């Protein structure tokens, strides 16, 4: 398995120091390996809108973001400063906190259940990355779409799928969100706009782009003005080397689709480090190559993610087109529950745990007190206990379910020996799986 080592300085292009003289107030974006990205400076127009900057005068400037944002302010080694440009209300803060705690506790419960044999197959946990899911999805509204990968439990939860439904699905029970037919990697919910759940990396990106296309089509061709749904595609660093990613960046930009491409760069694709797999590890840079803004944000800080999300979503809703957001994040567990849990940077990122960071922020700004936060944790624990009990008590899918839902129109099973469509025969799904 690849071991992580600090990349050698000579391997990466040196990015020169900030191009603006004023270093004190401008937001600075860091990198996790100082030699990879030097401390960069991003100029911040007061309007806070994304402006693709096509012409860069100096080589320095060309190396830096092509898109200005009021976003991330973080210094490489020090913890994030608590002073933020935008404020959140107490309600907003508690919603974010509760959602992240739900995500974390749910995934921890999954691990427990897996090792007790209630869950099986491939299970990929999201621990550590909650800020990305919460930060983006809590800014969406009903009617918006989310499309994910196999690491999709928390995206489904953030989007509103009940914990009971997700847990049942993982147990393979008939009460699951997909009646036990999808499983961990295939969470679909029409009601909540969750488009999956895909096992192949890169597969969800065109599907999310298609949903954005539908939104635009409804507005422009079907003349339905009330439609302004946006689509958010979540995927990882490994996916950014896949052809479909680039194909969709191109088409989304070409047709100005209302989509946000969110990269959850957790540095590892199973055991392949991002740096070993990618010629230019700066994923955000790949957006401007297609004429869309590329933004890099600290994915361990939910407030920063939220700031970027609000901006990107507004941009898409306005009809200004797609955005590529690279979230620097980390997974605290192995790739899946069947994989070893041995990543080297865990300790470093555990110190930047998004839930603890938000908790600290809420307490420091007197937006909540210990008791309130503790009661949220207790409430979530109860929700999960209930979800597990519900899943345990739920029935397995009946035998007749095997042949159901292969087609929306079951005449697809064809005509039987008696000359009638097989699906018209009432015993079709009750017998053996003879087709």
């Amino acid at each position, binding site marked *: 398995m690849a071991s992580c080592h600090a990349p050698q300085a000579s391997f990466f292009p040196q990015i020169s120091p900030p191009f603006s003289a004023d270093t004190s107030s401008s937001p600075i974006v860091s990198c996790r390996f100082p030699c990879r990205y030097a401390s960069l400076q991003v100029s911040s127009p007061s309007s806070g809108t994304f402006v693709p900057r096509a012409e860069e005068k100096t080589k320095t400037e060309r190396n830096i973001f092509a898109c200005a944002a009021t976003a991330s302010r973080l210094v490489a080694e020090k913890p994030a400063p608590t002073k933020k440009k935008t404020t959140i209300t107490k309600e907003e803060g508690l919603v974010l906190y509760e959602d992240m705690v739900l995500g974390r506790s749910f995934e921890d419960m999954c691990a427990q259940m897996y090792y007790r044999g209630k869950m099986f197959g491939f299970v990929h946990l999201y621990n550590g990355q909650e800020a990305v899911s919460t930060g983006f999805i809590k800014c969406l509204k009903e009617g918006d779409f989310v499309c994910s990968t196999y690491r999709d439990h928390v995206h489904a939860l953030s989007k509103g799928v009940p914990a009971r439904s997700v847990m049942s699905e993982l147990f393979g029970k008939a009460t699951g969100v997909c009646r036990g037919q999808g499983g961990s990697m295939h969470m679909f919910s*029409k009601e909540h706009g969750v488009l999956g759940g895909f096992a192949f990396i890169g597969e969800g990106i*065109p599907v999310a782009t*298609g949903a954005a296309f*539908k939104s635009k*089509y409804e507005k422009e*061709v079907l003349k339905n003005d009330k439609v302004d749904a946006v689509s958010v595609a979540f995927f990882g660093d490994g996916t950014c080397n896949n052809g479909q990613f680039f194909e969709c960046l191109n*088409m989304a930009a070409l047709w100005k689709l209302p989509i946000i491409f969110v990269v959850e760069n957790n540095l590892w694709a199973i055991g392949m480090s991002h740096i070993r797999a990618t010629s230019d590890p700066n994923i955000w840079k790949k957006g401007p190559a297609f004429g869309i803004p590329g933004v890099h944000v600290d994915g361990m800080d939910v407030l920063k993610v939220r700031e970027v999300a609000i901006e990107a979503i507004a941009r898409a809703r306005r009809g200004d087109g797609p955005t590529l957001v690279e979230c620097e994040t980390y997974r605290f567990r192995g790739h899946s529950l069947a994989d070893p849990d041995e990543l080297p940077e865990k300790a470093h990122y555990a110190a930047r745990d998004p839930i603890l960071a938000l908790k600290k922020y809420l307490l420091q700004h007197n937006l909540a007190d210990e008791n309130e936060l503790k009661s949220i944790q207790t409430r979530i624990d109860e929700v999960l206990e209930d979800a597990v009990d519900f899943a345990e008590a739920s029935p397995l899918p009946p035998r007749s379910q095997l042949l159901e*839902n292969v087609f929306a129109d079951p005449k697809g099973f064809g005509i039987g020996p008696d000359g009638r469509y097989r699906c018209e025969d009432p015993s079709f799904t009750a017998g053996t799986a003879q087709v």
Partner: protein
Amino acid sequence: MTVRDALNSAIDEEMSADSKVYLMGEEVGEYQGAYKISKGLLQKFGPDRVLDTPITEAGFTGIGVGSAFYGLKPIVEFMTFNFAMQAIDHIINSAAKTNYMSAGQISVPIVFRGPNGAAAGVAAQHSQCFAAWYGSCPGLKVLSPYSAEDARGLLKAAIRDPDPVVFLENEILYGEAFPVSAEVLDPSFVLPIGKAKIEREGTDVTVTAFSKMVGYALKAAEILEKEGINVEVINLRSIRPLDRATINQSVRKTNRLVTVEEGWPQHGIGAEICTSVVEESFDYLDAPVERITGADVPMPYAANLERMAVPQIEDIVRAVKRACSRSARGK
């Protein structure tokens, strides 16, 4: 009416009737279609509904599938189905399987269409027949028209169908004209998916075929008629679901079966039909099932080799004679 006009009129009528239907693919718009199937459609429906895509099969097929998840009805045209191999992940994994994975929440009313199989002299990477591959996948419906009537009726049915449909056309047939009745020309004309058509009734032997091979089988039948062999030709129309009832009923009448297809022999359509007949009508067979397929080679380029690599009318005649001269016991 030519098959080309039949397809064009089918798409035109369905797009007029339902504004959720749209066409996307390479060269479908301004170029009027790589094979002119979509001629005039851009002018009639505009660039919002007839989309010229970049050359990115995986990407635009996935976009089509994603838009179908929530109710649009895309027609995705592949310049040939060979290119669809770059998109096959989306045809199978995100289109065919989604209704099942989501337990019926999300259906995918999409049509994937384009020319399939050998053309003339286009060599190995442009000549593969994909009927068997797509035909084995649950969740898909796979259709293959022969005549103009088939093309119109089946394509309309496919566009109206709530499930993903793979529609395998044939480049050589595009220009061929067939007589059509007034009923076929009616905008509400559809053919049922899953029913084969008996193109020619007969008593001595059943020959099954689809797409271009139906024409060959019919010509072979005319030749055999003169030699006293009465051939029943079945135009499958639907590869999946396969109309096993019609095929078996026919074999029980004639007692002999010859399957014809252009694709590769192993795990092909003929293999499935043979098994179906062996399972359901074994006692009725008077001779082993004969299987005519394309040669088990990638398609060669040289004209004479290409002729040898695909079934010709003589091959069908020979196989039928062989089926008729053998009896149940020995040769």
